[in-house]
Structures are given as C-alpha cells and as structure tokens.
C-alpha cells in the first residue's frame, strides 16, 4: 500500500480525507486509481498525461525530478505539493 497525502486545497474531492491508501507501482497508475475512487483527481493533478504545472510530487522525503519514471514500492509516501517557483534555487 502507498500512503497518498491529499493537499488541503484538494480535500474537497476526498470528503476532507487527508490520507488515502492505494496500491500502485507508478505515479500514472496511482493517479488513475485515485481518480476512480475520487472523480476529478486526475483533472486536478494532470494535464495531457503529465503532472500539472505548479505541482510537484514528493516521494518519501524528496521532491522527485522525474516522478513519472519512478518505481513505487509498498510503504512509500506520496505527496503532491505546490512547486517552488520563481528562481528559488
């Protein structure tokens, strides 16, 4: 099981649920499964099958450079967080 943390601004889609548990081995699979359970999630998270502009994916404790390429394992934590814009690094 993956622990998926739902950002506060998206919790209206999950009836205010903070953490959702889902079985998936990739981010794409994860998002598809999320959307099935909570319709509208895919639209919130993706654009043209890519992670939406302005969103970053944290896998465990680091922002992933290439989330769609990562292999997810049981027990991983997934977070969707606002990107750090504006020449911050």
């Amino acid at each position, binding site marked *: 099981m993956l622990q998926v943390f739902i950002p506060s601004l998206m919790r209206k889609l999950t009836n205010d649920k903070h953490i959702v548990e889902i079985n998936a081995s990739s981010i794409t699979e994860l998002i598809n499964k999320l959307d099935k359970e909570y319709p509208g999630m895919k639209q919130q998270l993706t654009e043209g099958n890519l992670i939406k502009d*302005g969103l970053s994916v944290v896998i465990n404790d680091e922002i992933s450079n290439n989330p769609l390429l990562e292999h997810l394992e049981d027990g991983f934590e997934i977070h969707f967080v606002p*990107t*750090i*814009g*504006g020449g*911050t690094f």
Partner: protein
Amino acid sequence: MATVKKDYKVIGSRPVRHDGVDKVTGKAIYSADFSISDLLHGKVLRSPIAHGIIKKIDTSKAEKLPGVRAIVTSKDFIGSSDKNIETAEDRNEGETTRLKYLRDNVLASDKLLYIGQPVAAVAATSSHIAEEAISLIELEYETLEPVLNTTQGLSSKSIIHQELETKELGTKVPGKTNLAEHIQHKLGDPEEAFKHAEIIVERELTTETVHQGYIEPHAATASWSKDGRITVWCSTQGAFPARDTTADILGVPISQVKVVPLEIGGGFGGKIPVYLEPVAALLSRASGHPVKLVMSRKEVFECTGPTPGTLMRVKIGADKSGKFIAAQAHLEFEAGAFPGSPVAAGSYCVFAAYDIPNVLIDGYDVIVNKAKTAAYRAPGATMAAFATETVIDEVAEKLQMDPAEIRLINTAKKGTRRADGPVYPTIGCEEVIKTIKDSEHYNSPITEPHVGRGIAIGYWFNVGLESACTISLSKNGTINLVEGSTDIGGTRTSIAMQAAEVLGLLPEDVIPSVVDTDSIGFTSVTGGSRTTYATGWAAYEAAIDVKNQMISKVAGIWSIDADNVEFEDGVFFSKQDTELKMTFKELAAKSGAPIVGRGSVSKGGMGAGGGSFAGAICDVKIDPETGKTTVLRFTCVQDAGKAIYPSFVEGQMQGGSVQGIGWALNEEYFMTDDGRMTNSSLLDYRMPTSLDLPMIDTIIVEVPSDGHPYGVRGVGEANIVSPPAAVANAIYNATGVRQSSLPMNPASITKGIQDHRSDILNSMNC
C-alpha cells in the same frame, strides 16, 4: 549508504584552492574583464515609470548618431511570445513559464511594469556613445496607477497582467487579479488545537525589500555568428540554465547556444536569472559584431531581482510545558512584476525546525510594479524565520522558559512530519539547538547595561538536481576534473577533494576546470546549496569510474580477475598474491586506452539530503539615546553533514551571518510613492562594512546526511535564515521592546524605546 570511515586523508583538510593564485594576482577573468576582437559596447534604455502602456519607441535619432551600430527592441525577437516554455529551472520545479514574461523582463513589449525594465538597447563603438544614443531614443507611454506592495496588490483595481489568474496547486481560479498563486499546507486540525493552548502569541510582521549585494555587476558578451551559432560569455550561477533560457527567449534551439561561464563575482541567487544575455545576442545579430553589456551599480539595484518585501502573520499556541500544539502562518510576498516570489519556499520553511502536530500555512504570491524578485540565499526562509522565531521567543518569555530549551523540546528530528507532508530523514536540528544551548557563548554572563542576547534557528531544505563530471587520467598520475558548476566560493576545490579522496590523490593532483555548455553534461545552477553536495557526488562517481577502469586495466596486466584487485592508500594490489602491487602513478604511466571517468547524478529537488539547519547566538549593545545597534558577539552554528573543506564551510557561515545582520539592521530599499528606488548606491544601501562587525564565531556540527557518500549537506544558505531573528531577539532583551519590522534601524529602535517609556509613564499615571 553514508560511509562509516572517518579517517579521511583529503576531506576535512584545508589545501590552497585551485583558482586561488589567479584570484589574488588579478589574472582571473570575470565577466566584465572579457574582451574579444571587433567588440561593440551596449547600453540599455529602461522604463522611467512603474506602470504604463508603451505607445511608441522612436529610435530614429539615436540611429543617426555616429558610432551607433544597432538598436533593438522586443520586436526583434523571433517567433511568437504566446506560449509556455519549460526553462531549465522549471524542469526541476514541475512548471512552465510564459515566454512573454521572460521576454518582457529583458525587453518590454506592450507594457511598462517597473522602473528600470529594459525597453531598448544600443550597440556602439564605445560605451560613451551607446549611452548618448540611449538618451536620443524617444519613448512615449501612458501612465497607469502603480501597485507597490501586497496590500495594494490584493485590493487594487489596477490589474498588472490582464490575463493573470490565481493558481492553486496548478489549477486556475477564474477572475482578474494580482494574486498569482495561493499556497496552502495543512496538518492536523489547527483550529481545534488552538482552543486547547495554554498560551497563544500572534504577531504581524513586515520586512522590506533587500538585495543580494554581490560586488560584481552583471555583464554579458554575445556573438551571433553568420552560421547561427550563438556564444555567450557571462557571469552566471548556472551556465546550462542560462543557455536554455537564453535560447528560449531568443526562440532558437538550445543546441545553437553555447554559454561560457566566466569567473563570477558573487551571486547569492541573484545571478540565476538571465537579463543581459539575450539582449547582447540580439544586438550582435543586428550589428554583426560581438556585443558586450555591463550593468552599472544603479542598474543592479533597480533592475535585477532583489528579495521581496513581505507582510506576515504568525500565531503559535503552546501548552503549559512549552510544547507547541498548533501554529498558523499567513505569508504575503511581493513577486515583483511577474509571478514567482519565494513565498512557496517560505511556506515550506516557516515552521520547519519544529515538530508541531497542527499547522495551517497560507502563502500568497502578489504581483507588484517592482523588479521581478529573484532568489536570495535560502529564498523566503529568512523572512519566515524572522516571524516564527520572534514569536517563539515571546512564547518562551511568557512561559518563563529558556529560549534554547523551548526550541529543544519542540525540535524537529528524524521522522517529524512537516506541515507540507513529508517526514524528515536524518537531520541535525536537535544537535544544532543542543550545541547552542551548551556553548560557551550562550552560557557566558551578560554584565553590561543595554546589552541583550538572542538566539534563533533556521532551516533551508537544500536541493540535489543534476550534475555531471568527467575525469581524465594523465600519464603522470594526476587527473583533470571537468565540471559544470560555476564556482562562486571555492567549490572547484571542495568538488576536487571528493574525487581525490576516492583515488588516494593529493588535492593538488586534481586539476579542476569549470567549462562551457558544449564541454560537459547538463549541470544545474550553483544554488540551493547543491554544488558541493551534488556536483561533489558526480565527481565521486566519476572517480569511482576511473578507479574501476584502472582496476580492470591492472587486472589485465596481471592476468587476474578484476574482482581480485583491491585499491587502498594509492596502491592497487591482488587480494591473492601479495607480490602483485602497483601504485596509482605507476599504473597511470602504463600505455593503453585513455582512462576517462564519468559521473552523472540526479539527486532530487527540495529536501535533498534532509537539508541543513543552522542557528545563531547574537549579543548586541544598544545606544538607548540614538537607537544604534552594535553587534558585540555573534556565533553561527550549522549542520554541515560532513565539512569537506572546513574553511569554506566557516566562510559560508560567516558570510551568511553577516548578510543576515545587514538585513536585520540597515538594508532596505527606500521607494517613492511612484515606485522609484532612492538609495540605489552602495553608499545609501547600507551593507555592513568591516567596521560594523565583530569576528563571527562558527561551530560546525556534523550529522551526516543519508545518501551522500561522504554525508555532505549543502551549507550555502541555512546560515542566513536565523540572524535577523536572533538580532531581533537580542534587541528585545537589550531594550524591552519587540521589533516587528525589518530592518530594525536606529530610528525605529529609538521610537520603540520612547514609546515604551511613555507607556510605562502612562501606566504609572493611571
């Protein structure tokens, strides 16, 4: 993966840096020092107003001036601006940038958005002529009402970008606005938790715009050849991002652009953006000559990205024991004329040093008519820490707790969940606080009147990102190490030392070079405290690659299996036959296919290696009559993971501390009501001089980061985060008056003391 080996030979030593002799003899070539045959000199016409609409740009008179060779405006860009592109930086941030914004920030197209925004540029046979030509360009415009702070930005009817909609997690909220983005992090149930707090402190704080203040102004030379190839020589924190952004702005493929990074005279985040490079390239194409552009100090202050002014409200609730049970932050940051303030980073960092179960953080990125803000050393974290750490000080005072103790019982540690979600890997926050609490400085008595002591803690999350490195082995047993991280503070050496450690070499046996974008793999910016961490890691990988190739080679010579070869203390030997030995240098001298090692890493974004915590202890003396603050003693404590080159780690700690002290006391942009900066000189923008400071003591804490082969944590940034708050807390302890705005200049301290006195007098009268 962190090695347990502690007896390093090279790591932890202090050799003379490889670029040192050139830098103390004046031979090192910085961007403004560069020259090339047939060179023209350029100048930029800039907006005289903060907000308006361009009606007409008439360059005809300027074109007729003898010596003028080219004039360009935004009309000279190739292709449509109406698309989103992914800059090199964006790629790591998971977002795209409107090409129009990037272009408008280097040459305005339809609107004037801040005083100093480039409008046109001239190339001429001398800079004097170019400047004369600038004054002959006629710019007609219609003035609009400027928006100059977040309060105006959020309430004003003056909309800066008509098409802008507020983004929330990438989703657009319809409606015309100056609010570019709203960020929120929520953990637990803060509303409920505050109800149970024994004590709640809530304060509103503000900070003014400050500049990175690097001593070298921006400069760039570009040559656009007839075959379409563009070469740029410039001062940048990232040659590859500069290449990519320049290509995007110009509308040419990145393969057409080569960026040659010259020595860089400071950056602190401010030399990540591209300002002059595309303009110089356009002038070169138009004139057929290479063109050089150099900013004046006034242009640096008024036209390059500072870090923004902010308005913040922070609320912390604690129980009787001092444990924080709930926290809330409202952060409004000025983005400047285009989206992208450091409010997202500020939102991540605002409570990052503490384990708090219930947190709500709201961040607002507000467009205003000022220069687009840029990164400045731990962007956003310093302002946020000023708010948090002064509120915590007040909580401690109300509970009559020691300021270090309250921080210690609330410290974040491995496994602590941050408000934005992730849990920490191994971090050194607790160790930093303990070190402060146990330090001689913290425990020394204060005996003089008007002297106060303050402490504060700061966090910067650090990034990893991509780096590449190659190593070529020479016959004499030395190695040439080629890397793409521009070296601002000695990173060539701290990177070379990590390769030397692997190969059993002396630091001087490694010859490092920072090269152009055609000559090494993609390497991200020198920023985010990532260079020694990630490019050092790439050098480590490249050195391992060299070692493995040498093992194969010696195995071939000895006709044994490579698995049976060991390498230790500079000697290759057979595990089975003790007679079979060869030194590194002997093996290097043997002929055969050249040995070239490659290292290439991609090490994650925010949070790489767990980030770095730092803290400050500050003693100040206040002149109660003039409000002048003298910093008597200052100690910076920082977790370096493993200090590769301790002198450079100390140097980063001291430099960051002093920038923080400047920010605390005297640095600020003075702006008129129409958006003009009035103190754009190094006389009136008062950065600390040597006479304004004591020695800056340093204590390096080493809690190795998970992952990095030597446990390195980047140390470039966390050290600036706590000083303003530490100074503020010290001023409070010296005067009895809390300061809620940066800078805490003599006038505001004097006023605080006078108001405080009258408060006391009034209460006595009652």
